């Protein structure tokens, strides 16, 4: 993973000093609430229902075991002993005291971590496929490009006060969208043409109040011009994005209003001036970035070793877990393991200090000291020898991280919702828990197959409800919590926005309605069809009829 050079560390130390002084001036009354607001937001600090929430950046989801231990220490020393993996691969603390935040940032800076631009109207953490660098299907490792973008975006002086937040994701897998680039403000698709790397650049995707998928703006941007192209798009957005209405301020609204063609013309005009200028990337720089992400010292071993095959044959529970939570690896003899952070009764994505330390130990022992966070609020040990999977599984099982439900209905994604978030219209965690309790039979879950359920407590869509096969959105009607269901969203092979089922439901109706939808799928599915396939074949009508049937 990326290892800081002295100047990176220097910058971080200066940031801590800057924020410490800003916090001091705020507490002294020298900075007003309004003036401090964007400063603290650009440091990941929200004021929430009960306490500030601090969002720590995990660039494209990569964590070292040292960083995991530091996160554990922060959870223990300054929070209530746990933290939360967000849907953009970041780590959130729900209970820090404002006065402590400078010290927390100093502790994080010691392990090359920070909260820079994790919130606010600026360029946010760059995200990618959680299997980046180990996914056999990818064209090349997207992480060097993520890091190049991260550095360009970090304290970029021109783009710190954008009309609205700005999220960039990079994907290097052809014909799939594991990084959800279709629903990002900018999506960067790594391509190769005649042996040269380039990028298809999408702009104007996004979830939130007006969900839509991005338009292709740059068909093929040769690699030396990546940053110039991004800068061109950002400048167009910074100049012309709506600043009067925060609900119309995302770039998607601008792209839609201008039309892709006009937006492209404006971008190309800016790009024409920047192209071949000083921003042009050099081969040396790209090589240096790539060297940070070179493959670890893999052993020369074969796939499907005898130890694995024996364990698969003899242990049914291990076998089931292997088939859900273990992913293929580009390196022979290795596999990627997903730890599902979806214990029933606990907020999806929550992890305690002791668990973080346990994951750190497992990363050291089994996966070259590295772990990853995923946008589905899980964690990954990316480089595990196949002949050690059984041992690892036993350890994970003891920790409660071996629930074999990856991508199944109970592996649901949810924002912190009304229990914590002051923006939320409704709670999301109790809904998540009700669903997990209702569908706890593991045989049934496995029979149902992959189903993405995403829950957001408000329009801001932190739970990505629009791209869940089943999406659940909390809404407020005259002070009461209701839930609107969408179907057919996708964030797997493609990014697609789901369709509203109909009028929203009472809290206690949500689980029975979902059970009806699932029943319909089970009745109607053809061999080999997943929920989403059946939905796409049948369309929404039969689901609508079933959900709103009065005689059921």
């Amino acid at each position, binding site marked *: 993973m990326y290892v800081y050079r002295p100047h990176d560390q220097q*910058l971080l130390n200066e940031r801590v000093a800057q924020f410490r002084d800003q916090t001091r001036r705020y507490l002294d009354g020298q900075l007003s609430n309004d003036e401090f607001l964007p400063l603290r937001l650009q440091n990941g600090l929200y004021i929430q229902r009960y306490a500030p929430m601090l969002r720590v950046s995990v660039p494209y989801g990569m964590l070292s075991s040292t960083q995991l231990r530091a996160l554990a220490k922060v959870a223990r020393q300054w929070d209530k002993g746990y933290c939360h993996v967000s849907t953009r691969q970041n780590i959130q603390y729900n209970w820090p005291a404002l006065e402590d935040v400078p010290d927390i940032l100093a502790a994080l800076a010691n392990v090359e971590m920070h909260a820079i631009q994790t919130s606010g109207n600026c360029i946010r953490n760059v995200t990618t496929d959680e299997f980046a660098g180990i996914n056999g299907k990818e064209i090349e490792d997207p992480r060097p490009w993520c890091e190049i973008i991260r550095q360009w975006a970090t304290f970029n002086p021109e783009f710190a006060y954008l009309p609205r937040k700005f999220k960039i994701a990079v994907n290097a897998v052809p014909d799939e969208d594991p990084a959800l680039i279709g629903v990002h403000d900018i999506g960067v698709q790594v391509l190769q043409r005649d042996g040269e790397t380039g990028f298809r650049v999408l702009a104007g995707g996004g979830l939130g109040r007006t969900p839509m998928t991005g338009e292709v703006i740059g068909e093929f941007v040769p690699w030396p011009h990546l940053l110039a192209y991004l800068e061109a798009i950002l400048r167009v957005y*910074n*100049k012309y994005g709506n600043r009067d209405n925060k609900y119309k301020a995302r770039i998607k609204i601008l792209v839609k209003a201008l039309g892709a063609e006009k937006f492209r013309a404006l971008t190309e005009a800016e790009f024409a001036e920047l192209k071949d200028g000083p921003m042009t990337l050099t081969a040396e720089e790209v090589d240096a970035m790539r060297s940070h992400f070179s493959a670890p010292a893999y052993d020369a071993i074969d796939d499907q070793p005898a130890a694995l095959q024996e364990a698969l044959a003899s242990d049914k529970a291990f076998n089931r877990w292997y088939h859900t939570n273990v992913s293929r690896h580009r390196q022979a003899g290795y596999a990627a393991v997903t730890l599902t952070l979806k214990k029933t009764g606990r907020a999806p994505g929550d992890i305690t200090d002791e668990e973080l330390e346990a994951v750190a130990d497992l990363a050291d022992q089994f996966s070259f000291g590295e772990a990853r966070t995923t946008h589905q609020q899980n964690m990954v040990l990316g480089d595990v020898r196949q002949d050690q999977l059984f041992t690892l599984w036993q350890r994970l099982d003891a920790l409660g991280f071996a629930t074999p439900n990856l991508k199944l209905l109970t592996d649901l994604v949810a924002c912190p919702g009304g229990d914590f978030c002051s923006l939320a219209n409704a709670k999301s965690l109790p809904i998540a828990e009700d669903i997990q309790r209702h569908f706890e039979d593991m045989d049934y879950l496995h029979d149902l197959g992959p189903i993405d359920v995403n829950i957001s407590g408000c329009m801001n869509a932190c739970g990505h409800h629009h791209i869940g096969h089943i999406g659940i959105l909390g809404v407020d009607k005259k002070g009461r919590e209701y839930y609107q269901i969408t179907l057919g969203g996708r964030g797997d092979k493609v990014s697609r926005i789901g369709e509203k089922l109909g009028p929203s439901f009472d809290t206690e109706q949500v689980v029975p309605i979902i059970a009806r939808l699932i029943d319909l799928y089970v009745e109607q599915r053809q061999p080999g069809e997943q929920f989403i396939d059946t939905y796409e074949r049948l369309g929404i009508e039969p689901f609508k009829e079933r959900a709103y049937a009065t005689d059921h």
Partner: protein
Amino acid sequence: MPQIIKDGVVVDDTWVRLSNEQIDQDGIPEGGDIIVPLSVWQAQKDALLKRDGAVGVCLAPGEEPAAIAADLDQLPLVAVDFPAFKDGRGYSYARELRTRFGYKGELRAVGDVLRDQLFYMHRVGFNAFAVRADRDIHDALNGLKDFSVTYQGDANDPRPIYRR
């Protein structure tokens, strides 16, 4: 006399910035260095240039530098107004003035100009800052020194870190 930060030091401000309302009410003063809104400049360019005293133009959000690109040789000062510091359009305007149009004169940030934005403002090309009147301008000066490290090129040094 009011003070501004210019080229890293606090100096007396010899310019008077006039709003549309002031000009409507009192007309344009015969002497002294004045900063006028873009619309006034566009309507009365010749008369303004014949006055006794220098003239600069102030761009408001939505008024792009291209509107004065042909006039830059005649303008010793361009001001960019930040009615609210959260409106970041002026950062792109400054960058364009310096980098695209090669403007070499005084580029001044006016309006809601505060210490915690100065570092970025300086990087996009502002060399003068009319810090909001209710704030300590000497304290604001510290904002120019927040960081010693930068990743990107900027209006002062176009080279990003990988080309330095």
